[in-house]
């Protein structure tokens, strides 16, 4: 009895298995048939059919590519007022092409996918170049338009809005010529540039495009921007906000500030007093030492800027291009015997 029961169980199992197996085969074949490009899926012919669809993809792709290219070429001759429309259409065609590649990518050889994507990105590039060439972007520039400001300012505080009347005229005037009138020294060579800002209300101060100059800055500024200096010496009193230096080569800086950021500097020495850690990014051969500047009353200015004490931060440099525990090869502490003596700029023009 037991044996029989076993057998019938076993045969029931076997038939269930067979059913499952058949059902699965059916599902598989259904799936095969539902694939659009392979109506007839015997395994032997699968390689040739995939080849066929690859080639049909390639011809379709090539065709639309040529059509896009020729339309791009026609754009140069097209009516300028219709250009925007043309570009939109072309851009849509490129998007379609991209979609085609995405849809076909599951059966395409990876080389074809890569090269098609490359082609598409080239087309996009060409379209971008052409559209920026033929439809010039409205470039932002500062212009003197005194009437526009107040109504569009959503968040101007009441007090500001009142004195805005006089401000924009003065400010607009300076902005109209690309802001060269904000305090600073620009485009100079072989000069001693000196400025005493004590008693003046100085916001940001800019040093840019200086070659072989010596800069002497007495008093406190709120912010200092330094851009493109070569062979310069910069002696500056305390900056209560931050200093941002970009592109300096063969320079010496004496700076005191809350924060100092140095980008793209080469072969330069920095004598710093700073309340936080100075940082460098994309720099090489930069060296650091403590601040060594003197003018009559500098102690008072340093005190006012919260820089009365030397906190020793000048040597705690963070290199954003060297995020490891080991010392960065891009900067070093300036050896004591190579440091300059304290610089006295009490007499500005000396």
């Amino acid at each position, binding site marked *: 009895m037991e044996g029989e029961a076993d057998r019938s169980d076993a045969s029931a199992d076997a038939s269930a298995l067979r059913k499952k197996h058949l059902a699965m085969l059916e599902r598989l074949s259904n799936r095969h048939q539902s694939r659009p490009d392979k109506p007839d899926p015997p395994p032997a012919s699968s390689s040739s059919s995939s080849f066929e669809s690859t080639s049909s993809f390639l011809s379709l792709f090539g065709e639309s590519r040529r059509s896009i290219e020729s339309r791009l070429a026609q754009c140069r001759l097209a009516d300028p007022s219709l250009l925007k429309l043309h570009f939109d259409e072309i851009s849509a065609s490129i998007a379609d092409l991209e979609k085609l590649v995405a849809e076909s990518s599951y059966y395409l050889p990876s080389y074809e996918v890569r090269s098609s994507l490359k082609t598409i990105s080239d087309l996009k590039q060409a379209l971008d170049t052409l559209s920026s060439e033929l439809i010039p972007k409205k470039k932002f520039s500062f212009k003197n338009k005194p009437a526009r400001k107040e109504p569009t300012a959503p*968040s*101007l505080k009441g007090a500001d809005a009142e004195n805005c009347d006089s401000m924009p005229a003065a400010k607009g005037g300076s902005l109209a010529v690309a802001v060269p009138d904000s305090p600073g020294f620009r485009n100079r060579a072989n000069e001693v540039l000196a400025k005493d800002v004590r008693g003046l209300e100085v916001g940001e101060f800019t040093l840019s495009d200086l070659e072989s100059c010596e800069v002497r800055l007495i008093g406190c500024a*709120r912010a200092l921007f330094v851009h493109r200096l070569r062979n310069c010496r910069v002696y500056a009193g305390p900056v209560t906000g931050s200093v941002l230096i970009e592109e300096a080569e063969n320079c010496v800086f004496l700076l005191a500030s809350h924060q100092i950021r140095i980008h793209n500097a080469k072969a330069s020495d920095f004598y710093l007093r700073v309340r936080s850690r100075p940082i460098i990014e994309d720099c090489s051969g930069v060296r650091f030492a403590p601040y060594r500047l003197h003018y009559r009353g500098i102690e008072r200015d340093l005190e006012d800027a919260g820089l009365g004490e030397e906190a020793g931060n000048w040597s705690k440099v963070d290199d954003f291009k060297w995020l490891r525990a080991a010392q960065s090869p891009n900067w070093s502490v300036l050896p004591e015997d190579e440091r300059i003596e304290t610089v006295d700029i009490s007499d500005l023009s000396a």
Partner: protein
Amino acid sequence: MGLLSIIRKIKRKEKEMRILMVGLDNSGKTTIVLKINGEDTSVISPTLGFNIKTITYQKYTLNIWDVGGQKTIRSYWRNYFEQTDGLIWVVDSSDLRRLDDCKMELDNLLKEERLSGASLLIFANKQDIKGALTPAEIAKVLNLEAMDKTRHWKIVGCSAYTGEGLLEGFDWLVQDIASRIYMLE
């Protein structure tokens, strides 16, 4: 139940908002966060990596992610995009030379799909510095009017140094997020 509605439910219970704060280096992001939280702002090093601050604001809990803005680490911003309810873009209004960079980075950020639902607050910071551009001027440079119409945005002038304008900005942001997440069912 979709994932989105689950997230909404969880968030509603805890009244939590995730806020991502980005912008160029030297724009004052960390100072803003510390100032709004009533902390000392006199010694702040440039951010190497990121800071997270959890603060209680009105009846909400804000998780503020303050991510460093140095060029080298901007490419990591995208690691913080997920589930951002509010985006704060901080501009140094006195740094005229880098406004182009600022516009470019913001444009890139706004193309990001994962941030497409986030309310955008732009802080035109450093208004206390003489010579800084006004919020209206910054809006013009950044071409904010041309932004996608579906985006909720606002530009607010502020000074992280004095604290002026910070509450106005955060009030708007929190209200805007709240009206989207908690009322919309």
